[in-house]
């Protein structure tokens, strides 16, 4: 008699354990789905840019610190205000460097600047392919390429 009761009790516990496990799974699945949908919506809104520059150091605050710069396919960088990316710094040349997206990769090319263009601390002497996460130094301004 008690054996029978115990057996039923165990069966109930077993099903309860599995039931809770599946409820948890369901909750996870729902929040994964919700997340997926909101990610899709966000992507449609912003139509996925090709990259941005995070400003790590900018002594004259132009470009302003902490605000990433959205990039087009061709970006000129320099102290001349007609550049796409205007940099206010005495160590930057008027037309300093070009940052371009060609095919699948970003490239940086120095435009004969006085103080040079640095990628991850190395001065470049020809167009260089960049990876996301590489650090650019132009004058005293440091920026990082991000996706």
């Amino acid at each position, binding site marked *: 008699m008690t054996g029978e009761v115990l057996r039923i009790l165990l069966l109930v*516990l077993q099903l309860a*354990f*599995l039931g809770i*496990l*599946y409820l948890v*799974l369901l909750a996870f699945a729902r929040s*994964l789905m919700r997340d997926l949908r909101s990610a899709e919506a966000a992507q449609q809104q912003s139509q996925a840019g090709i990259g941005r520059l995070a400003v790590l150091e900018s002594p004259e605050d132009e470009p302003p610190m902490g605000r*990433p710069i959205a990039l087009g396919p061709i970006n000129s960088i320099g102290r001349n205000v007609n550049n796409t990316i205007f940099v206010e710094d005495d160590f930057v040349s008027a037309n300093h460097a070009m940052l371009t997206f060609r095919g699948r990769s970003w490239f940086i090319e120095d435009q004969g600047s006085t103080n040079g263009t640095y990628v991850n601390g190395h001065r470049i002497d020809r167009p260089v392919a960049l*990876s996301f*996460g590489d650090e650019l130094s132009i004058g005293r301004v440091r920026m990082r390429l991000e996706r």
Partner: protein
Amino acid sequence: MLLPLLVLVPLGFAATHIATSGKADVGPMQLAAAYVVMMLAAHFALVAAGHRGDPLLLPLVATIGGVGMVMLNRLSPDVGKTAAFGLDLDIATTQVLWFGVGVAAMLAVAIGLRDDRVLRHYKYTWALAGIALLVFTFLFGTEVNGARLWIYLGPIGFQPGEFIKLVLVVFIAGYLAEHRTLLRDAVWRLGPIRIPPLPYLLPMLAIFVIVMLVVVFGKDLGTALLFFGIFLTMLFVATGRRSYVLVGVLLFLAGSFVASRLFEHVARRIDAWVNPFADPSGAGYQTVQSLYAFGRGGLFGEGLGQSLLPTAGGRFFGVETDFIFAVVGEELGAVGAFALLALAMALVFRGLRVAMLARDDFSAMLAVGLTAGLGLQTLIIAAGVVKLIPLTGITFPFVSYGGSSLLASFLIVGLLLAISHRNALAADAEAGRVERGP
């Protein structure tokens, strides 16, 4: 998402106690309580620190680990005591202590690692440290069950393989992030054949081959397979070239064939896989018993505490480590085993999402490699236990008994949390820009 744990783990403990003692009371609950409180505390610590990392990672891990704790609590009397931390403890208590160490390490990495430069800039140093550790194990390690995996420092033994996995992922991520464009776009043409630029591949290949050789000669096949899988996944994600994967898989098959001819222990494993019933009480014993366990479990399982596997013939080995998935299959049935795999899949999904949202190549590659590590490890051991692939001894992440494995897995989650925290901060900065407008 952590709240169901409050019911799930104690329920499992109670069911186990009733089934094994035959008395209708809930039995000792200290370990269940310790586990649940620990996970809730970890959650609140992240919230209190203002952590913005992925909010689902910890609950997923805690649920998988909760099922593992129920299983280990159940297996504890059958496996007996171990001498861990210099004390005589049963394996469930030891595992709860290791969960504490793991969670602390996870929090330290998730909250403390504000900058990944320590990892990125010293990748060769990390690689060398990893190789040194590997060679040290190979030379001075203790051999257990035919594989030389353990180093003993006084009373505490650990498996360096688990940590070398982490170091290897950090190194490959750093290397690929630095040379990705070259590996992807530059090609040497040899007539009609396009081959990747070898000079750029070589440093990575060299370190990888060294690791593989030592692992294979240490007879640690599961880890070798895992490392290779992680490597190929990362290479494919970095370059998008299917040819790399194809060549890698072909190389692996060729290597396996050669290994099965050269090494007796590899050949034995493969024989036991092809036909375990040829020698059901000898070489095929483990596999056969594991298959029987899944058979007994059926759809809904025999019930917690009622597995025959730990006592089957008294000589079944590794019930709390490699074969814990078979015990899950027997006690919770196909339904429970499936739930565990689905939870692991959700964890992989979240990990890849962290990688997708990463702002730089290194973080993305790191997240991919770490996630692939967890996912492949689960896949390899689960598939091995059900005889889908030859059985190789590795642990089921967050479920199997073992301090090194648990600590390494929690370090992985800590790193994923740290990366996703930085992603969230970057997204905030961007949103700030949009709001202010031109």
